[in-house]
């Protein structure tokens, strides 16, 4: 299970805890993400996956343990600082800037790299013009990757669901991350759309040299593309490994299907073989 690569991990969770009162939403979770890997995080509803995302991105402060990003402890930092260090995310229930154009949604994420001061902006001077043009072209490039370039003038909330999902990923990429966290990117998509999306995720991982951690419920999707899968239940990691390892794991089957299910499924498989 333990990976023995000599590269330093991009993200490391060490005994990470996050409690809400008496509820241990995340309890002593260890997680190591190697650079350039495509990681999956799965588990039944309420197992603490999204809470982990919220702790990594700084929306919640960890109750205990450490979040180490590129060798630096980032637990408890402001979300915008964490984003500027190189972690971007999408949300489970899409959170675009609904009344702004598609282009502006992406341009906002590029804001920390705008390269002009507020007084340049107020003067609308030459430097502003150049940098603004550069920024806009960059944003349009991101839209092109997701085939949204013809939608750039559209108001974000008027986009169809699938395009909103893609726009959210585009916006995340525009903030130039090294680690991208995707919270159920394929939610609400039919299997065909989901597969296309997964191919796209694979593609951006290579194009932008990203590490990706994704939460997903569509097993076909997760098992298809994730190189490394972590399974959570009741705030704890119950299994980790490749898709095959995880599928066979007794704890995983029981977490999803209930106690005793592992035995039943073994019997079922045996009967089917006969």
């Amino acid at each position, binding site marked *: 299970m333990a990976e023995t690569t000599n590269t330093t991990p991009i993200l490391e969770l060490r005994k990470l805890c996050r409690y809400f009162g008496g509820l241990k939403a995340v309890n002593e979770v260890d997680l190591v993400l190697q650079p350039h890997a495509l990681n999956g995080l799965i588990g039944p509803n309420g197992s603490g996956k999204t809470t982990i995302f919220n702790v990594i991105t700084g929306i919640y402060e960890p109750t205990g343990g450490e979040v180490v990003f590129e060798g630096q402890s980032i637990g408890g930092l402001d979300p915008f600082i964490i984003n500027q260090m190189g972690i971007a995310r999408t949300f489970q229930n899409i959170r675009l800037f609904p009344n702004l154009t598609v282009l502006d949604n992406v341009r906002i994420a590029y*804001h920390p790299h705008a390269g002009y001061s507020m007084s340049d*902006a107020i003067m609308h001077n030459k430097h502003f013009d150049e940098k603004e043009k550069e920024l806009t072209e960059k944003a349009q490039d991101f839209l092109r990757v997701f085939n949204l370039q013809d939608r750039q003038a559209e108001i974000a909330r008027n986009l169809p669901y699938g395009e909103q999902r893609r726009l959210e990923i585009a916006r995340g990429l525009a903030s130039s991350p090294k680690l991208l966290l995707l919270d159920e990117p394929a939610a609400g998509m039919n299997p065909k759309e989901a597969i296309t999306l997964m191919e796209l995720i694979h593609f951006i991982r290579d194009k932008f040299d990203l590490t990706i951690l994704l939460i997903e419920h569509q097993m076909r999707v997760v098992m298809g593309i994730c190189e490394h899968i972590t399974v959570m239940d009741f705030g704890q990691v119950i299994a980790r490994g490749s898709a095959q390892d995880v599928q066979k794991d007794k704890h995983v089957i029981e977490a999803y299907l209930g106690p005793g299910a592992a035995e039943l499924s073994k019997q079922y498989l045996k009967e089917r073989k006969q």
Partner: protein
Amino acid sequence: MKRLNKSSVLFLVGAVLVFSVIQVLISMKIINSFWSTILLQAGVMAIVALGLNLIYGFNGQFSLGQYGFYAIGAYTAADITYRWTQLHSASGLTVVLMIAILAGITIMLIRNVVTKIRGLDTLSAFALYLTAVVFSIFVAIKIGQLIANPVTALFNSLPEQTSQYIIYLLAVLLGGAIAAEVSFLFGLPVLTLGSDYFGIATLGFSIIVKVLLDNSDTMLGFAEMKGARGMIGIPKVTTWAFVFFFLLLTVVIIRNLLNSSYGRAIVSIREDETAATSMGIDVAFYKTITFVIGSFFAGLAGGLYAHINGFLHPNTFSFVKSFDPLIIVVFGGLGSVTGTVGAAFGWALVLEGVLRLVLPDGFETWRFVIYPALLLVMMLLKPNGLFGNYEIPFIRSIVPALKEKKADSETAKEAA
């Protein structure tokens, strides 16, 4: 000037036209002093409302404190010019100027330090700012008094008109600057509150300002402000030209700001704060800076207002009145610069002008029945405000055309 595109030219021509037509009508006395005063007040109100629209309409922070900053600007500017015209001393100017400069520098220095400290909570930071600013004000008053006499002599050597106008313009700008600095200190702890709580806190602020002004002669020790009796003897120097110039300046600054990355960052906070902060936008900073800019315009407008009638009374800045800019902003359309300016002029011209003339003697008070009724109807028919999201082409942000690119065929295919 390659940068003047068609909409900018049209806007400038339009602005010059509007200005000169009204200016000519005022000079020819076709617009009498009653109407011209209303026009001035409308312009001033437009600046206040634009500041509030930036805070509420664009940044999404529900503020009722705009009139507090308006009052601060008004009284600051009035005190400076009062001391010059009535007491023949520039001490007001020098002291306030030093306060504005030193407090500004102090705030910036502390900001540099505070942003480097990790995990400093807001209240500690606030205490640090407050102590340092109070100390810098103390120093500034000493320096201001020290240089008051030479500066007075300097202004006395200038022609009377010139020095009067220089002091007036500086006073108006300083009114804005002081309001901005106060808003920074006030906003620092209060902006961490969620939107509704922030509204109540700002309401508290405008009440504090009103009470302090009611007792400005006793509690604050400014005898010339005469507390609740009202301040008199302020020179009436605000003219249509000044109001129009500052209004134009406000519109252009707000337009340029909004059509930039900084403006988009400000608007993103209104749209979704969590998403904004997750996308690298320093939410606390942009909330504060927006609040400061909005309050600067309020203070500036206050300075202009003080010199229209030459009379200031704390009741002008009362709790009920503080809803005026809010009503204008909502009436004109939240997040519409055009709508705000339109509504401000419409509001002043109709409420103070037309209705006053149309209603028979003794029924003027019915204005305040008719106009809320209008508001009700308006909210039912057009809840987005008169102009909704409409902007004139000059202000509207343009979506730049896509530049043709050698098709990244692989990309396009992949994305499907």
